[in-house]
């Protein structure tokens, strides 16, 4: 009984927190998000209803929708900032370990995002009810629940030194690969959708229970957010660059997100390559390649955390450097911008080579996007920083946003603008480097004012 009362209290507080808006703008923002989600749900419902007009089978469309929603959930928990699993009850409070483990799972599974997705499915199914079978509806919900459990398992395995950690990580990755890949590997031709999802759901549940129980045990230590690796005895002279590099990558948040970003990027590119090669001569596909695929090549994921959030994650490093070197802190920003962008360029190029999709227009868009993000990222990092303390305090309520809304809106606007202007000329997106340059000039010229404003923002939030 205490378990359900506590769960009710937590979920109630979560709801109150969600609607505790700072100002009218944030209320309007949340209503807009709901309206867009509603629009998508109805839209997808109609797409399923008239799937034959799109020359796509209902099953393929449903699989794509399920995969997109599950991928969105994974992305939400890692970008723009890593969100740890909920452990709402401290170990010394009177609740048994299994109950504490279960409460953590229930709080994460009943938080606002999963409930909103279930509502989304409800609306979509209501619209397309006549063309969907009960098995398809249940399997779709099962797909999402499996992804939810796998995502939580992945985070638990990353956050805790559980026994057989590598084995659990491997199990989660294999189950995720089967979940996301089964339709596109053609398995559904031989085995019914539900017959694949149900065992996956059960296995994911078993992995999640094992990990959650271990994480609630005092025998299992939490992996510290700072790296415990030795970085030498400090007596040997080291360059400023190497010290900053170690401090930056010593943060668990940063190196975890780096790893996930690389995997996500490669996965998405391979996923689209699989679909592009299937209908290569189709006009629609060429448009898709030209206007959509580049977004997955673009260094957007890098922007969302490296340029925007990593400064928050390394707030002390950033501030210390800024206090001692003043305007030279801008150099630090460019250094950390250049490093991930170069790395992203190498990863992207390698994947494009593998899938035989090296086109000048994609490279031009990548360059334009990277160039604009440098300026926009600098502007956002100075004007709207996110600090690591805010990330950790948001652990309890996983829906709480830790990103800068304007930063994200800017990225979406950028994608749309690049896609639109490239319709006129392949080289036109490079013109966006001009406003990016203005952003840089603005920050450099107003740095002395902005740094005080930055300090104020950090200490107010």
């Amino acid at each position, binding site marked *: 009984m*205490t378990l359900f*009362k*506590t769960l009710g*209290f937590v979920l109630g*507080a979560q709801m109150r*927190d969600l609607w505790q808006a700072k100002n009218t703008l944030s209320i309007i923002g949340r209503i807009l998000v709901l309206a867009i989600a509603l629009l998508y749900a109805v839209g997808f419902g109609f797409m399923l209803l008239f799937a034959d007009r799109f020359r796509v089978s209902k099953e393929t469309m449903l699989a794509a929708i399920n995969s997109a929603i599950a991928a969105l959930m994974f992305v939400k928990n890692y970008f723009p900032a890593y969100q740890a699993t909920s452990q*709402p*009850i*401290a*170990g*010394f*409070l*009177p*609740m*048994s*370990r299994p109950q504490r483990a279960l409460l953590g799972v229930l709080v994460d599974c009943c938080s606002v995002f999963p409930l909103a997705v279930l509502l989304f499915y409800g609306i979509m199914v209501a619209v397309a009810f006549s063309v969907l079978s009960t098995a398809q509806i249940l399997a779709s919900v099962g797909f999402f629940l499996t992804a939810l459990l796998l995502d939580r398992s992945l985070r638990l395995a990353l956050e805790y030194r559980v026994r057989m950690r590598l084995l659990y990580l491997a199990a989660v990755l294999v189950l995720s690969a089967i979940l996301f890949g089964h339709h596109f590997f053609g398995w559904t031709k031989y085995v019914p959708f539900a017959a694949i999802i149900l065992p996956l759901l059960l296995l994911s549940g078993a992995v999640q229970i094992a990990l959650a129980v271990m994480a609630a*045990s*005092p*025998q299992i*230590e939490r992996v510290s957010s700072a790296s*415990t690796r030795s970085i030498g005895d400090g007596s040997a002279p080291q360059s400023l660059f190497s010290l900053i590099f170690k401090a930056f990558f010593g943060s668990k948040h940063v190196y975890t997100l780096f790893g996930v970003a690389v995997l996500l990027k490669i996965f998405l590119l391979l996923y689209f390559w699989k679909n592009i090669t299937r209908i290569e001569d189709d006009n629609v596909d060429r448009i898709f390649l030209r206007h959509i695929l580049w977004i997955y090549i673009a260094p957007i994921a890098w922007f969302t955390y490296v340029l925007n959030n990593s400064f928050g994650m390394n707030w002390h490093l950033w501030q210390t450097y800024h206090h001692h070197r003043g305007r030279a802190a801008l150099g630090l920003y460019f250094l950390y911008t250049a490093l991930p962008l170069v790395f992203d360029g190498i990863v992207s190029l390698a994947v494009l080579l593998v899938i035989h999709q090296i086109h000048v227009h994609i490279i031009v868009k990548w360059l334009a996007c990277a160039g604009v993000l440098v300026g926009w990222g600098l502007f956002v990092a100075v004007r709207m920083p996110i600090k690591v303390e805010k990330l950790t*305090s948001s652990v*309890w*309520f996983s829906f*709480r946003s830790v990103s800068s809304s304007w930063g994200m809106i800017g990225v979406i606007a950028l994608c749309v603008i690049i896609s639109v202007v490239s319709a006129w000329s392949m080289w036109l997106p490079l013109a966006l480097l001009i406003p990016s340059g203005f952003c840089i000039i603005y920050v450099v010229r107003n740095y002395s004012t902005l740094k005080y404003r930055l300090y104020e923002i950090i200490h107010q939030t």
Partner: protein
Amino acid sequence: MLTLSSLHKRYGSKTVLHAIECRVEAGQCFWLVGRNGAGKTTLINILADLIAPDSGSLSFGGLSYDKDELAIKRNLGVLPDKNPAIPQLTGREYLQFIGLLHELPPDECSRRAQSLLEYFFDETEDAHKRIGTYSHGMTKKIGLCAALLHRPQYLILDEPFAGLDPVSAAKLVRFLQSYLSPERCIFLSSHDLGYAQKIMTHIGILEGGVLQFVGSAEEFASTKDTLEESILQILQPKESNIQELNWLLQ
């Protein structure tokens, strides 16, 4: 009442606690003191069941976490080093949440919360503000209220005076002196010699993961002139040559 025997804890290759033996009887306040990194917080976390020892045993009035986890925790009040107060809740909501976990009747919980808030907070309106907006000292106070709400028999406090203003610290000292009774015991870790001295009945000095001294305040006081000198005598600080800082001092 609270018995620790042969407790060992290692982090990787580093031994943090080695053969910890001590007994805190009802009516006693045990003050744990030591250098930074000596293992005090690790020991407190083991007492609070936040981490498990590698070996050794721990019992609360004959009960152990292995068999009687809930029975112990219903009688345990903890203020840990990292206070798990939930920033999105108001102070009063947080106490309501803790009351729910301890299965306190709502009216009783509300009455207790009110009196605790009135005692520890100068402005009771602060209880209606979100914990995320609290100062370090206020967060500490709400953590104290949460640790005391269910009238615990065992009170475990990690640095309770850190961050408190002198008025609040004096109030806490007065409270803890009154709270000690023949049915209760307090396990306290603190660097504030002045405040801890006023409450403690027993002292344990932790150095290099080993309890170098365990005894009553009277036994300890008889070893040297002042408390500080006695502690330094046991801790044996490394001789630091201030001449090495001439580059800075000149």
